[in-house]
């Protein structure tokens, strides 16, 4: 436990407020459901019909918002999944009628067919080193392909005229209105709970910094594919409802243009806010239905102009504007209670002294004809603190990269704890017990300090999909880093407000929280003050002194290196030229020549 009283006191005062704020979304949802349930008699038939459709579209907007606003995946593909759900429903109900079995089959098909396609699309879109642009490209191709398949489906899909006249659920238009309202409220509430929960932070983390996610041992690819597939399923269910409520499905429902419309609604409403896209979609679709009869082109013109203006001037959409006003009011400004820090006993089992933690044999790497590393042999055992030194361009950072990413094209063998890492993605190497700190602090800019640390613990402790844990369990060394740098008092601060040194310390704490057996640090003291450097040195020495873990650091500050290292390895022009104790290396004539530039000639 930590002796940071202020935090503990504030945490004790929090529960009542926290319970209230936790119940609030449920109360709001219940009130909304009640209001929409009794609404139909007060609306005319036209309004009921249009709003039913608008609310179904709003469900799609929620899925687009989760993908784009939260997880950073700009997608035009939700329209395709929606269309497939609608067509599956129409085809099954058309063939088997609205019998209980037919309805059950339609629901299942509307959910599973898009979800399966979503899996395939996810697999295609996300792979190690895939780019966000590529995922958007795929999401564009999917609706185009689906629409062409519908066109070529002949009688099955009704080709360009779509399907009409199939059996539907036995509801009046008021019934569909209420069903759509309930569906929208349930989906929105579930999404709200997810994004407020710890697991929701992982989505934002993916958007902020996918590489850091991988180097925390999270599998970004799997998260993205799962999200794509499950939200494809939700879009399919919306398609089921749409086919029933409207009684007609057409190729446009699955098309790329509809996909772009969804993105426009979400952008105008406010990406990353859930409520913004819901209200935006309902408002815009309802307005469109009322206005486009009188001024069809003008309406599109206004919408397009508003869209361009919002994207350029107000990327957060209208919800961002409302949010800013709200925060300007005294009631809107509430500081969330920080989680309580708890010490967690270390889980790393001692590696048998006989097997080295890291073994590198004959490692070589070249970019085309330029050889960057050649003939590197290196063994590192538990308890060692090895400094990697050498002039700029010696290959130090490249070596670190090879050690932490097995998909780098290199020759030779690297084994962590006896397991070869060739071909393994960074997250799997983290699973073997390797933690890497980057040269430029790599944290999640839109998350708080506590959230960053919690994500670092996710591979060990998991993330709650429904709530926020009130405690944050960290191994003692990570707590030490936080305390020595004062970060333990800044747990709720967003990381983009931290100083350079604080970010470096936070990243170190995150890496230490992984409980790695091998820590790789690329210039951990670059740009830090003397005091901060001393702190990091103390932490590293304490970590390795217990004899359970090893650390490798790239460092230019030779005084710092001399102070903390147990061993020094000198790289020069891609070769390992010296490997010895501090005294060996510091006294070496060779090192002096290299640093004086003599060896270049």
């Amino acid at each position, binding site marked *: 436990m930590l002796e940071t009283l202020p935090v503990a006191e504030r945490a004790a005062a929090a529960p009542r407020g926290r319970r209230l704020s936790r119940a609030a979304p449920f109360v709001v949802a219940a009130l909304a459901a009640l209001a929409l349930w009794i609404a139909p008699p007060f609306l005319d038939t036209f309004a009921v019909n249009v709003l039913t459709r608008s609310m179904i579209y709003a469900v799609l907007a929620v899925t687009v918002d989760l993908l784009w606003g939260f997880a950073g995946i*700009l997608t035009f593909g939700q329209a395709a999944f929606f269309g497939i759900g609608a067509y599956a429903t129409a085809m099954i109900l058309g063939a088997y009628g609205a019998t209980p079995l037919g309805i059950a089959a339609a629901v299942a098909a509307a959910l599973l067919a898009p979800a399966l396609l979503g899996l395939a699309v996810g697999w*295609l879109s996300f792979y190690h080193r895939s780019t966000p642009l590529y995922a958007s*490209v795929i999401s*564009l191709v999917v609706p185009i392909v689906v629409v062409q398949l519908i066109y070529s489906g002949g009688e099955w899909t009704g080709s360009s005229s779509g399907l009409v006249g199939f059996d539907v659920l036995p509801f009046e238009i008021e019934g569909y209105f209420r069903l759509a309202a309930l569906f929208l409220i349930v989906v929105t509430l579930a999404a709200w709970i997810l994004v407020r929960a710890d697991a929701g932070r992982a989505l934002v983390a993916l958007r902020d910094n996918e590489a850091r996610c991988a180097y925390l041992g999270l599998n970004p690819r799997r998260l993205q594919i799962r999200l794509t597939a499950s939200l494809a399923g939700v879009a399919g269910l919306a398609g089921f409802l749409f086919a029933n409520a409207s009684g007609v499905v057409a190729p446009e429902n699955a098309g790329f243009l509809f996909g772009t419309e969804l993105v*426009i609604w979400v952008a105008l409403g406010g990406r990353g806010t859930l409520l913004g896209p819901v209200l935006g979609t309902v408002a815009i679709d309802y307005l469109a239905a009322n206005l486009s009869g009188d001024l069809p*082109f003008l309406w599109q013109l206004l919408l*397009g102009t508003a*869209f361009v203006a919002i994207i350029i001037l107000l990327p957060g959409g209208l919800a961002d504007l409302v949010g800013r006003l709200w925060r300007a009011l005294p009631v809107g400004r509430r500081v969330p209670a920080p989680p309580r820090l708890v010490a967690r006993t270390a889980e790393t089992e001692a590696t048998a002294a006989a097997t080295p933690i890291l073994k590198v044999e004959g490692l070589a790497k070249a970019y085309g004809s330029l050889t960057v590393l050649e003939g590197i042999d290196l063994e590192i055992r538990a308890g060692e603190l090895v400094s990697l030194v050498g002039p700029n361009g010696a290959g130090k950072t490249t070596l670190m990269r090879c050690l932490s990413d097995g998909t780098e094209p290199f020759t030779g063998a690297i084994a962590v704890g006896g397991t070869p890492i060739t071909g393994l993605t960074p997250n799997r190497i983290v699973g073997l017990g390797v933690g890497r700190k980057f040269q430029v602090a790599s944290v999640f800019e839109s998350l708080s300090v506590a959230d960053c640390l919690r994500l670092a613990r996710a591979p060990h402790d998991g993330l709650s999909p429904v709530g926020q844990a009130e405690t944050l369990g960290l191994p003692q060394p990570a707590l030490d880093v936080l305390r020595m740098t004062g970060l333990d008092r800044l747990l709720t601060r967003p990381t983009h407000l931290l100083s350079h040194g604080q970010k470096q310390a936070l990243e170190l704490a995150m890496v230490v929280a992984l409980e790695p057996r091998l820590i790789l640090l690329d210039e951990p003291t670059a740009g830090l003050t003397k005091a901060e450097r001393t702190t990091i040195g103390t932490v590293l020495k304490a970590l390795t002194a217990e004899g359970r873990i090893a650390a490798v650091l790239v460092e230019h500050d030779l005084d710092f290196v001399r102070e903390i290292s147990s061993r020094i390895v000198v790289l020069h022009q891609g070769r390992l030229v010296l490997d010895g104790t501090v005294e060996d290396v510091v006294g070496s004539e060779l090192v002096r020549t290299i640093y004086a530039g003599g060896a270049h000639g």
Partner: protein
Amino acid sequence: MLLTLDILTTAAILFIVSIGLLAIFGVLKIINFAHGAWLTVGAYCAVVTAKIGLNPWAALPLAFVIGAALGGLAEHFIIRPLYRRPLDAILATWGLGIVLGQLITLAFGRDVQLTPNLYAGTVEILGVDYSAYRLVALGIALAIGTLFALTIERTRLGLSARAVIMNETLARSLGIDTGRVRLVVFMIGAGFAGLAGVLLTPLTSVDPNMGVSWLIGAFMLVMVADASYLALAAACLVFGAAQVLISTFVSPILGSIAVAVLAALVLRISPKGFSRA
């Protein structure tokens, strides 16, 4: 023989349609989703030229000038604030495309417009009668490609553009006015898109939404070509061939999605696309 001609001319048309998009993507690293709207604007330049009774070929310079002028405005007001947000730039240019499409609709109505054929008739080559215009298009594509290559390789602008492509920060620190390079390249790219719009008029119906159907194909080709005009030419040939062959032997509907699907698969396997070869 007919098949070979079809493949060559299809590739030529794809090249004409995508070269403007490629220029912009290569230098600005921005995908101009309003590209389709520029094609439409170009095509309506042909409509206007016909209405005021000028020679149909006069539409080419007109479309280039109008396309470039609109491009200059778009770069200044829409693209420039979004250089650091490339995904948002896609959306903003898409919005701009909607706006342009609606303005055209307001001015000309949403009906299909008739344009005079730029070059009517057929030519007999090697025993087959072939559309003369498609052969002219092939020649124009070669001319545009050559012009483009000369601009990139031989002119000061081309040199600056290549410097910006390779390393914009370094280019700026060497005193190249990168903002100006971006503006000029965007205007040229938009001008070429307008030009392409005119050249499409004999092949497709002219209506306010005609550009959208060409946009996706051009976009996928540019993704695969990754800023290299030679790779673009190769991609046009390969995917053009696939489109013609699949349309002829399997089904025209599948043929119409061949470019998009094949390009997506190529990108999945080799993210740099054709530019490596």
